[in-house]
């Protein structure tokens, strides 16, 4: 009886170990020593050898002697960001989705499989001291139900020494964000059916920092998708600018389909006829009034 119990325990341990290793959020960095004012990165990677996953959210707690500078998404496997890495109540929050699912990154040349990069978080050391960066993940299966899958995070010790070495992080990206096609949409569940513009660009070399929009001759203003257009008549030109982390910009103009060419021609004809009537009245006003 004892032996059976012993074997059951071993198998149970193996099963638990296998399950806990199935979805892994990790970093290639085991520990780090940096200088004060020095920028450094902590990459976060993800893999799920057995269960395809398609969404995640991470909460990253950081010690007081670190400042969160930003993130670098060069080479990231995440194509849709829900929450780009940002600071919220002293913690770094990030979440995103990978449409149609992700397991492991495959290198077809050497058949190697491994984790895919989510992002590289950029920090800068403040005061000398020890601390720990802890990543707590929530990972969801690509099963159409949003089932949460078991996933262990990680903690890495970080030490900032007494030396001050000022260095800023430089994004290695000279390429513009990829071409993208914004669309004008109308949906009863968004702003009472108001016209909105929907957009999303990809930047493989550093990631999208933000978007800006300009209506007509207005100013560029920072925007998120969906953006409710100020000009609901759709008569202004709409330009969208995608700016990557290195500052490269791609501007695209939205093709407005809401007013059809036939409608536009009709409007032009009406305006033309109105003008003709006005000119006729002005030119022949004496005759018209005399007759009266």
């Amino acid at each position, binding site marked *: 009886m004892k032996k059976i119990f012993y074997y059951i325990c071993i198998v149970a341990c193996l099963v638990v170990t296998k399950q806990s290793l199935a979805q892994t959020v990790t970093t290639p960095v085991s520990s780090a020593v940096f200088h004060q004012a020095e920028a450094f990165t902590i990459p976060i990677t993800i893999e799920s050898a057995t269960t395809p996953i398609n969404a995640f959210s991470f909460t990253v707690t950081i010690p007081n002697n670190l400042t969160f500078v930003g993130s670098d998404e060069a080479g990231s496997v995440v194509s*849709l960001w829900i929450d780009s890495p940002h600071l919220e109540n002293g913690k770094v929050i990030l979440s995103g989705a990978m449409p149609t699912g992700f397991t492991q990154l*495959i290198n077809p040349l050497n058949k190697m499989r491994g984790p895919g990069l989510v992002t590289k978080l950029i920090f800068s050391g403040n005061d000398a001291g020890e601390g720990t960066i802890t990543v707590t993940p929530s990972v969801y299966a690509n099963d*159409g139900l949003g089932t949460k899958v078991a996933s262990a995070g990680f903690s890495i010790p970080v030490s900032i020494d007494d030396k001050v070495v000022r260095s800023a992080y430089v994004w290695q990206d000279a390429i513009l964000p990829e071409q993208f096609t914004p669309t004008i*949409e109308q949906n009863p569940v968004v702003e009472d059916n108001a016209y909105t513009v929907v957009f999303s660009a990809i930047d493989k070399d550093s990631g999208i920092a933000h978007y800006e929009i300009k209506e007509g001759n207005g100013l560029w203003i920072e925007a998120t*998708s969906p953006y409710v257009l100020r000009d609901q008549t759709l008569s202004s030109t709409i330009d969208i600018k995608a700016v990557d982390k290195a500052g490269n910009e791609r501007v695209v103009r939205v093709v407005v389909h809401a007013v059809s060419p036939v409608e536009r021609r009709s409007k032009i004809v009406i305006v033309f006829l109105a003008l003709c009537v006005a000119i006729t009245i002005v030119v022949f006003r004496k005759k018209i009034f005399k007759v009266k």
Partner: protein
Amino acid sequence: MRRNCIATSILIAIFMMASSVSVYADEIVTISASVPGAVGPGGGGGGGGGGTGFSSPTAVTFSGRAYPLSKVTILRDGNIAITTIAGPDARFSVTLENLTGGNYTFSTYTEDANGRRSASFSFPLFLTEGATTTVSGIFLAPTIDVDKAEVKQGDNINIFGTAAPSSTITISVHSPVEHFVQTQTDPNGTYLYTYDTSLLERGSHQTKSKVSLSSVASEYGTSAGFTVGDKNIPKDSICGRRGDLNKDCRVNIVDFSVLAYWYKRPNVLEGIDLNADGQITIVDFSILAYYWTG
């Protein structure tokens, strides 16, 4: 003690073997790459001359089986990159060019003649600059649908869809007990199975199917749901499936933006909240990502 150790080792070995024989979709898929002009290790490090600036294109070729004359779509990082039409034998091959080296998530799906979509097949790949990558042996799962949203207990429900022609379809009807039935596709790849619901309990059920041909089987595809109840209610439009928030028969960035609009907002409208928990969370985005069509 020694017997204990041997028995433990055997158990561990059996467990490890069992772990490695589980079947995943990509086991039938072959992924390979080659760099034109590259030489193997020890093949000499010559070259360097010329300086013409020529570099071979970075490309990926996808091939496999879909349905006869069906439209096959390749997504690149969630966006439609290219489409092609499968041959009458359901085979397709399509090459995506003008890529640069780096990480990509490619996925492929197909649509049958009635606009029903297969489940997506996903390939996260690291592409080497100048390498030509081949992903072959893709076997897309069947489409599936039912003719009734609700079926009277004991009446028949038709389960149908499309797959590779002249292949075997295994249909699973999920209830507290999972039932399996088999049927064949015709030369056009369509199948129909008339299922007797007297075996099923009242309530919601899901059915899904997979295809096998020449000892190769696909994964199970997407599910179709129906209810066993007191009356027969025919099923209407195939449009507006889960995640299609603007009812345009696609699940893409427009639907994502609708979810993003409601993310963390109170009083979410009915129909937007995909898991019906009263709020838009990462779970809703996960459901949307599963049904993504680009």
